[in-house]
């Protein structure tokens, strides 16, 4: 299951990481080396074994439907890179740009 430069480009795009050509090439090597060590798992017989899905066998605790919310000691303006009239601003998307375009 060797990782190719196309895989690296695809994964970097999914993860919104901008990679230089040099870094992308290096990552092909690094990922293949690391993933080679992971191949030890393929030899393990896991037929009928449940995958760990969420720790905590007691189930999910729930809260009652009421406030107050956890307060913010400082407002959005104190930490957001760009705000206006209470909105957060980001570079413009056209109306129907979807997750894949963004």
């Amino acid at each position: 299951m060797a990782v190719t430069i196309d895989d690296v480009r695809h994964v970097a795009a999914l993860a919104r990481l901008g990679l230089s050509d040099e870094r992308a090439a290096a990552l092909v090597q690094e990922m293949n080396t690391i993933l080679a060590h992971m191949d030890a798992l393929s030899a393990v017989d896991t037929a009928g074994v449940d995958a760990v899905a969420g720790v905590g066998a007691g189930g999910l605790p729930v809260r009652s439907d009421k406030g107050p919310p956890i307060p913010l000691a400082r407002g959005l303006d104190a930490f957001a890179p760009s705000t206006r009239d209470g909105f957060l601003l980001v570079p413009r998307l056209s109306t129907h740009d979807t997750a894949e375009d963004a």
Partner: protein
Amino acid sequence: MTAPDVESLQRDWEMVVGLEVHVQLKTRTKAFCACSTEYGAPPNTNVCPVCLALPGALPVLNAQAVVLATRAALALGCTVHPQSVFARKNYFYPDLPKGYQISQFDRPLATGGKVEIGRHENGSPICVGVTRVHMEEDAGKSVHDRYPGATAIDLNRAGVPLIEIVSEPDMRSAREAGAYLRVLKQILEYMRVSDVSMEEGSLRVDANVSARRRGETKLGTKTEVKNMNSFSGVERALEMEYVRQVGVLVQGGRVEQQTMLWDGAAGQVRPSRTKEGSHDYRYFPEPDLPPLLLEQEWIDRVCKELPELPAARRARFASEYSLGEYDVEVLTADPQLADYYESVARASNDPKASANWVMGEVQAQLKASGQDIAAFRVRPHDLAELLNLVRDGVVSHTAAKQIFSRMVATGDTPAQIAEREGLVQVNDDSQLAGWLDEVVAEMPKEAERFRNGERKLQGVLVGAVMKKSKGRADPRRLNQLLAERFGT
């Protein structure tokens, strides 16, 4: 293209539709934090560390969201599972603060439901399967046209609880799709789980549609149609997309699997720029939330305590109140109207008069004022009291209408108004006789002709008394007095 085109195409080409409906649950606070779900607050004021996805913040599930989701799932005939698992759906978008949406994937809350949307001509039910109902959270809002060169993000809606209701591809026409949506909306309204308003975005519909030659059993390649903002928009979009697909197929072409966007203003569907296959949401179980465990006993109790479903209520209205089919349809269309009617009918003990009033005066008032029945000033017991005043002859039917409009304006009780405005019916014999004496004196010829058997003149005489009494004379007693006096 127009509807007749669709009809003729459907002789040879079958339309296959499945719908994915997102519904906002009516909770006070968000799904995973205690922020208010209030609609229309100033931007980014209903936010906290959790729904802003600040580093280190964690989700905690709202119990009421589970109750509402379970209620909806049961009402749609689904099996609610004792164990379901939240999962992360990973994608980047500026109104998705965490970079993933908490949803459910391979272990949803509920599966395997069914909804009856109408009857075939032979009387057999038309049903649509409900594949699954799962819980998830809403994203924020992106405003694209407010500032030049920038998209503005408001996260007030981020984290509001949703359910997604996925249907089987069981619908065969746009009309069936519309019927399914209307039935679904009514059921959810009856379950009091959501405002189900497409205009306010508390109900959103995506459609999967494909076409195949009649007789073919395999499904054709489907496209996903998005961006509809009304039920009729969904119907029109489905027809347009169906016509487009058949156009491709007729020419021997192949339908490309893609996302289409409905442009309501232009009445057209057009391909979205999204490349198919670029979806890779990397779902995995949400490690911040252990599996949701629901005891079967709890599920059974929610099921037992479900509000009455629309179909059951229609049947009950027909039998309990002896109402006709049309009256039942009108009175049960909206659960709050049905509640209102039922309160009036019970308090007045006169289901027929209650139906007439609610469908007549009440609905006319609501329509004229654009008001919601919940905010309507005339409460059911006051209307029932008015009906009783009419029944007991305390006020005339004409006076009752006057009183009703005063009730709408002031919120006072009918007795108060009748008293104040002098609309209480007079059935005191001496008072009535006095008026009658005056009328006989003023109209001797007519009185004489009536005495001699010209019965049609009864109306003239009664009318004259009514006028003298300013409408307060009790017509029933007056007629009796007239008969006694003239021996007719």
